[in-house]
């Protein structure tokens, strides 16, 4: 019975989370124009509850990596991700953030997932606003199912802890 309540509670919390994603736009390059277009009234990301960009990572739970990440920027990106409160999700916006795009050289990171875990990748140079909204819907499904990277990690850590407690190796 207790298990039933906790899982249902988790579902309810996830339902709330998926409709109130607070984005932190990590905008580094030209994809930012397309991001602005998604956020502007014509495509209106607010319809899905992800309308309010927070310019402090501590208040955000969705990190949008919009544009190329260079090796020099990588520590800053990692730091921003570490500052965000759990649970948190990441969208790689555009090919540069997803794979490095057409940069195959000394200065660019081949995909932001070399630095931090990414939940949804959006291809395109830059992606159409419809693609971004599609990715947002995918992410919302993921949030509801509890399959986001940080959610899964949290569950895994909990199981490990429980096992350790059960076998009597308390810290």
């Amino acid at each position, binding site marked *: 019975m207790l298990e039933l309540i906790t899982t249902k509670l988790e579902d309810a919390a996830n339902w709330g989370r998926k409709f109130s994603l607070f984005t932190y736009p990590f905008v580094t390059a030209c994809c930012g124009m397309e991001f602005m277009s998604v956020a502007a009234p014509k495509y209106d990301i607010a319809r899905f509850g992800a309308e309010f960009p927070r310019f402090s990572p501590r208040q955000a739970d969705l990190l949008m990596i919009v544009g190329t990440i260079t*090796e*020099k920027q*990588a*520590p800053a990106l*990692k730091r921003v991700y570490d500052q965000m409160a759990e649970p948190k999700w990441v969208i790689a916006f555009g090919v540069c953030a997803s794979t490095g795009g057409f940069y*195959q*050289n*000394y*200065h660019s*990171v*081949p995909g932001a*997932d*070399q*630095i*931090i*875990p990414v939940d949804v990748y959006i291809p395109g140079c830059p992606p159409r606003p419809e693609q971004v909204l599609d990715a947002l819907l995918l992410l919302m499904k993921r949030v509801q199912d509890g399959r986001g990277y940080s959610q899964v990690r949290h569950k895994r850590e909990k199981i490990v802890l429980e096992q350790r407690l059960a076998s009597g190796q308390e810290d």
Partner: protein
Amino acid sequence: MSKKVLEALTKKFGEAIERTETQFGDEVAYVKREKLVEIATWLRDDAAMAFDSPVFVSCIDLLDLRRPDENGRLVQVDTTQVPRFEVCYQLRSLKHRHRIRLKVRVTENDPRCPSLADLWKAFDWQERETYDMFGIRFEGHPDLRRIYLYEEFVGYPPRKDYPKEKRQPLVRRGDLPGPEGNL
């Protein structure tokens, strides 16, 4: 267009000008390294020259480069015979509306070049960029540090012998499969 600048230069400095040429309407003077500051000072201060606008500093790596010879055929540059790098200073006079490019040849083993940052303030960051990208040591520069890349970076990427995809990461995820780092 600026032939008279070249003529005045060769007349005044003679020996210090190694070679002059015209490329696509731009006049180029190859200058001896020791005389660069003297020549540049004269170009800036002489009333008939009055080069008041510094345009850019850059560098050319001649490794694996093919250039046209006197017959117009492309010939491989032999960097064992000629110095590998050419440092270029492009100057312009807004007053007299003429331009000149000064080139200094430096070798790979001794990549030193006098700095013109004291003459034209705008060359400060340009010389830092040239140092960052090609490793040319500008002597007398007030603050010669890397400007784009990070301090930990080893080597000079636009040099032709730098491996095209060699990355020098500052951070990587620890949970990635395979060897961490240079992917």
